[in-house]
């Protein structure tokens, strides 16, 4: 009994020692040889598994599974009815998907960004406090780390880890994401960081100029990184919802509502080649009315 307890205590110590040293090595080394290889190995093995699981789960998510009925007419008719309704709904879904692809193509065309389309197959668990997704395109499709990811609404994030057939995307709302942004029709620039929520106030804007004029409803596009990695210029990001009043501060801060609905991400496009020119504000949709259009929630 006592011997048992001692060996268990040794196991506990081993667990703490191992995991803490792995954490420290991983934090320090970035994508160094031992742990980076472990991560890409996991991506190589589990990427296809997740792609397959998502393909199986998709129709299940789309339609409620029909229950196995008896041979009575009523049950048979009910089953047929459910099946027809399911078909109807799935053609609705096909139409919605086509519309989504259409929007993506329009945005990619307006910005002249050559994109590789991909679908989200896995999403990080909320208790991880991080916001990342796996997409079903990888090295074989020409992807590499630090590429911009968009969808029909605007900026989604950037590629971090790339596996053979899948890649991990760091979403813009993740607390470790920061994006250079520019206010529409001005040259005010700032940094957008994720606030770790998928809601209406997902982004935090810090303008570099403390005297900058910014108001609710102002729209933001990406400023564009050096060499277009990780972010190409001109991608719509979101609109300012609230400006913080902090007199005496060197910078101005505001809350930004992203255009992309991060709770319903499905089809995305990875910009695989930087555009020749900066589209400036051309990709933003035309304003519906001259005054501030977005209703404050």
């Amino acid at each position: 009994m006592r011997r048992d307890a001692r060996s268990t205590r040794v196991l506990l110590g081993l667990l703490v020692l191992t995991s803490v040293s792995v954490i420290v090595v991983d934090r320090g080394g970035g994508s160094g040889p031992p742990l980076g290889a472990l991560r890409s190995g996991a991506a190589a093995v589990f990427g296809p598994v997740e792609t397959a699981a998502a393909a199986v789960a998709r129709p299940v998510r789309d339609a409620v599974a029909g229950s196995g009925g008896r041979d009575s007419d009523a049950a048979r008719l009910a089953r047929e009815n459910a099946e027809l309704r399911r078909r109807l709904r799935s053609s609705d879904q096909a139409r919605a998907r086509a519309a989504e692809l259409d929007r993506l193509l329009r945005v990619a065309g307006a910005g002249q960004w050559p994109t590789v389309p991909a679908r989200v197959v896995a999403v990080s668990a909320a208790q991880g406090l991080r916001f990342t997704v796996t997409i079903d395109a990888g090295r074989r499709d020409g992807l590499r780390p630090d590429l911009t990811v968009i969808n029909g609404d605007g900026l989604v994030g950037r590629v971090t880890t790339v596996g053979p057939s899948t890649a991990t995307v760091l979403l813009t709302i993740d607390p470790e994401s920061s994006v250079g942004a520019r206010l529409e029709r001005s040259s005010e620039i700032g940094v957008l960081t994720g606030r770790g929520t998928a809601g209406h106030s997902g982004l935090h804007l810090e303008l570099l100029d403390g005297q900058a004029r910014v108001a609710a409803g102002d729209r933001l596009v990406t400023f564009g990184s050096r060499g277009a990695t990780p972010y190409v210029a001109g991608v719509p990001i979101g609109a300012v919802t609230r400006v913080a009043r902090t007199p005496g501060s060197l910078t101005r801060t505001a809350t930004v509502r992203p255009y992309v609905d991060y709770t319903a991400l499905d089809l995305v496009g990875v910009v695989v080649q930087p555009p020749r020119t900066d589209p400036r504000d051309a990709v933003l949709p035309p304003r519906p009315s001259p005054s501030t259009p977005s209703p404050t929630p």
Partner: protein
Amino acid sequence: MSPATPSPATPSPTTPSPTTRSHNTRGPTLLHSTQVVLGAAALLTALVVQLTVLSRLGLPGATPDLVLVAVVGLALRGGPDAGLAAGAAAGLATDLVPPADAAIGRWMLVLGLVGYAAGRAGERGLRSPLASVALVAGSAGASVLLYAATGLLFDDLHAPVGVVIRLVASQVLYAVFLSPLVVHGGGRRR
């Protein structure tokens, strides 16, 4: 000391009966290979379902943690050592399988500790259905808190207190709903 310790009703105290011996050997052999394979398969299936299905349901608060429930189930069956091993392995997988992007080792530490504690509690006789449900729920809440704490310690990630409270509350609730999966299994073993 040796022969007549655990046999309460056997009339012959002279020889250690073969039944008690076989019972003894069956107890600690947790690392029976088929059990390990089955346990690993259960954990990996839980992880893939969690990342491809459950996290996309858009449920309020946390994502129902199937992996944690599976770890607690294995710990209830196998005791603290098995719980620790299952938790550490499941945690390492959670740290590595895409789209994981945080420091490797954080879930390994958290789930290893939770698996150990659940195995301990199961050993101490918390085996009634109600106690098992409470154990799963408590482990779920503890795992969220511990993980947030490792983020603070190692990843410099300051999660807002309100967010963490919401995650803990929702995770406890989801764990109660998922607990029949393992409470049933725990009862079958007896």
